[in-house]
Each structure stands twice: as C-alpha cells, then as structure tokens.
C-alpha cells in the first residue's frame, strides 16, 4: 500500500501543468503504483477564500475511493470551524492550511486557534513549506516560504495538534525536529518529496537520525512528477518493514483521524 499525502488537482496560476485533472491524477497514480492520494484543490490556494474550493474538491473525489479530500481551512475567515466538521463528515483524513498564501502569520493567533481546533477534532493539519523551488518562481509569486520557527511554534501551541509538513528539505526537518521536545516531535510527520536521495545521503541520514516513523510518502504531484519520490525510496533499498512504514504504516499508526 502506497499513500501519497501530498497531491493536488486543478490548475496552477504560474505555469501550464499537465495532468492536473482528477483523471490525470488517477492516471499518474496508476503509473507510479500509488494506491491512495490525499488531495487538495490547487487553484484555491491562491483564492481570497480558499474554502470556496472545498465543495468542488469533495465532489471531484467522491466517485474515486482512492482519492481522499484534504479541504482547505482559512482561520482568518468566519465560518472556518465548519470545515473541520465537514471534513469529519466527508471522511477527510486531514485539513490543510497555507497561511502565507492567505496572507496571515504562519505562527500567529489565528493559526494557533486552528492548531488547537485540529487537535481537539483529532484531525491532522497539513502545511506546505513551499510549492515550487524558490529560484524558479514566477516574478509575481512572492509569497515567502514557511519558516521552521513557525512549525516549532505551532507544534508547541497545542498538545494535541498533529502536523504533516510537506516540501521540507533536510535542514528544515532537522531544525524543527531537534528544536522540539521528543513529545512535540512525535506529533510531526514529514513527507519525503523535497529530501534528496542517493547518491546524496540526506534522506538516509534523516531516517537514521530522526527515525523512519516520522516520515510519510508524498510527491507534490502534479507540480512535481511523482516518479521522484518513488525513485528515491527504490534507490535506498530499505528493509520492507521500513519502506511499508513510510508508504502507509506511519499514517495508519499515527495519523488516523
């Protein structure tokens, strides 16, 4: 079983993106052996009300059991609490928030309230460090990348919140993990999409120093081709149990909603 916690559907405003439809995502999943994908609505990351994309997301994923909707929550807009309830009703495995794209402080009071609400609702919160390589972003795409300090602040803000951080590189992961207590770090999961594999030893090192149980499989598709995350695990030749833990076991054990 391979579960991708970091997938999107829909158009991207800054470049043409093949395979951004639901059908395209399903095709890519079949191509790369991904059984289940946690899916967010990409266009609404950039909307003033990103929650307005949730209805489309629920509808688009309803007929495909291998797609699990991850609706957006904007804690600065009235009514955001309803999304958490709806997420539970719709079987969403998590909710997501992209605070810097929404123009709110990533560790400010609104995010802390959201973190606490997610903790109380037993719903993991997905947050992305970035969507694209900072060197190639569109000249008008000036949203800052998520700071490691913000993740440390969020995980400390509520003792029940669980965070899934996507698109983090080795330095980011290490800074947050070793800047947190063991109890805090045990409520953080990292997707592997932005961590370098062989011949560099970054992913291998992290699996050894931080622990296999902290990592989950993610791709960032269709912004990135999903073959990348599969290839880095294939090259590592992990013991089957470790590979299974990253690809699905850690989700089942630690992130079940």
């Amino acid at each position, binding site marked *: 079983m391979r579960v991708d916690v970091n997938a999107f559907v829909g158009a991207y405003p800054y470049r043409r993106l093949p395979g951004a439809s639901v059908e395209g995502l399903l095709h890519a999943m079949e191509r790369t052996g991904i059984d289940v994908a946690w899916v967010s609505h990409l266009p609404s990351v950039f909307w003033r009300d990103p929650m307005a994309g949730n209805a489309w997301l629920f509808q688009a994923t309803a007929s495909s059991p291998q797609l699990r909707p991850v609706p957006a929550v904007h804690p600065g807009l009235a009514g955001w609490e309803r999304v958490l309830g709806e997420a539970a009703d719709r079987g969403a495995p998590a909710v997501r928030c992209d605070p810097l794209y929404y123009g709110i402080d990533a560790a400010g009071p609104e995010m802390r309230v959201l973190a606490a609400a997610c903790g109380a609702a037993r719903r993991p919160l997905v947050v992305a460090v970035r969507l694209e390589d900072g060197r190639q972003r569109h000249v008008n795409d000036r949203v800052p990348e998520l700071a490691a300090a913000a993740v440390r602040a969020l995980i400390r803000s509520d003792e029940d919140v669980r965070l899934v951080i996507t698109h983090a590189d080795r330095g980011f992961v290490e800074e947050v993990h070793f800047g947190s207590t063991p109890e805090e770090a045990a409520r953080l999961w990292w997707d592997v999409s932005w961590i370098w594999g062989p011949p560099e030893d970054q992913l291998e090192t992290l699996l050894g120093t931080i622990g296999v149980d902290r990592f989950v499989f993610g791709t960032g598709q269709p912004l990135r081709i999903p*073959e990348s995350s*599969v*290839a880095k695990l294939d090259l590592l030749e992990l013991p089957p149990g470790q590979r299974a833990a990253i690809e699905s076991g850690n989700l089942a054990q630690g992130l079940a909603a």
Partner: protein
Amino acid sequence: MLIDVHAHFYHDRTPRADWRERNASRLEAGRKIGITIHVASILGSFGRTSPTYFPSPPDLEYGNDALLALAHDHPDAVRGYVTVNPNYTAHACAEIARCLGAGMVGIKLAASRRATDALLDPICEVAAKRGVPVLHHVWQHRRHDWPGQEASDGAELCALAARHPKVRFILAHIGGGGDWQHSLAAIRGGPGGVPNVYIDLSGSGVDGGMLEACLDAAGPERLLFGTDLTIDTGWAKLRYLERLLPPRELELVMWRNAASIFPRGAFPAD
C-alpha cells in the same frame, strides 16, 4: 546503454569529509539504475581553497587529475570533462590539451565568466578544433547577478553557441533551478533556433510539465540524460520519459544523442 552527461565526483581536497562515500554512492546508484557511463567533472576544490565557480589554476589541475585517476580506476564507467577557468586563458587552453590528451572527452565551463564574454572564444575554438562538446553551467533565467558565480542563462549560452556554430554546447541542468521556460524559449529561438545547443535534463527539479516542454522546444534529438547531484531525480525523469516516448526516441535521450556529440570512441558502443 545509459549515458549520464552531467555527473560530479569529489576528492580529498574538497570540503566533503565523506568524499569517498559519495563517489562510491554515485557509482553504486548508477549501477542500480543502469548508468553505463558517468561523464563527470570536478570543479576544482569545490570551494575549499578557491570558489567552486571561480576555481584557481592549481585547484583545477588537482581536480582534473583526481578525475583522470577515477576514470583510470573505472575505465568501464567514468569519463571526464576538463574543467577550466576562462579568466586564465593560457592555463585553460593548456589544461584542455593536457586532459584531452589524457583521455577526457569534453570541456566543462562553470560560471567564472559570462558566456557572452570574448574570453570564452579561445576555449570554444579549441573545442571546435578537437571536436569535443562544452558542458556549460546555466542559471535558468538569471535576472541579476548571484553571489559566488558569474552565471549565464540560456539566452547567454545561446549567444555563445551562435558565435561558435561548429561547437556542440550542453545547456546544463534544466532542472537545476531557475525558470527553465526562459531557457527553452532561448533554445527554440527564431527560425531555425539554436541547433548546436543540447539540453541536459539533470538537476533536482522534477517539475510537472518540464519534460513535455523540453520535448516541445528541442525535440528528442537534442535532449540528454543527466543527473548532476541527484541520481534519484534523474531516474524519475527517465521513468517518466519511458511512458512519454516511443523506444526509438527514448534511446536518443538515454545515449544516442550523447554518443553523437562526444568524440568517436568515447563510449563503448562507438
């Protein structure tokens, strides 16, 4: 057959204490994914005693010697680009002669001098005379100067290529960061485009749509498989292309295009 046109190795005078492990890891990862030949370069001391992109002549010689030694130790797997700094014209030309004479098969230009600068001309003239390709480091769309390098972008490399139409240039790491669409537009150019520029697919970037855009800009006849620092991303792109291209065109990208631009006899199939 799979030729990686953009590989790097390290040596004992680079900042990496794990240089032996990284070299071994590259060869091992290459074996796993089926790389037949790593065409590699070593950029001087990679910053230890002179800047990576402005390597000193002694560091260049040490790095090139280390690469020659690796190629000697792994004659079935490693070939070399001779790395030079165009600011030292006489040294660069002598180093090219020395290293090509010792078996290297191409020239590596990093970012010591802008591609539009006349100081690159003597090096390109040697490349034309010796029939070897030039792998040129590229920052995809350089909107300003970046610290640590006098980088060139695709448009600047294409200007150099237009001045030296007999030389085959490899535009480095289209997935290596920066706006690759800017580079692809430069390669596509006006009528006829810039036919002597090839795209190296290496780099950690695995953007959706990038490979389709490369094919659209240059066709499979001018794409070259490469990895740079990350073999995992190179393998990912290869896997993606396996679904995108018919076998004949995939072979072009995997090795036939490379075999056609490097000197005859550089690879086992020649």
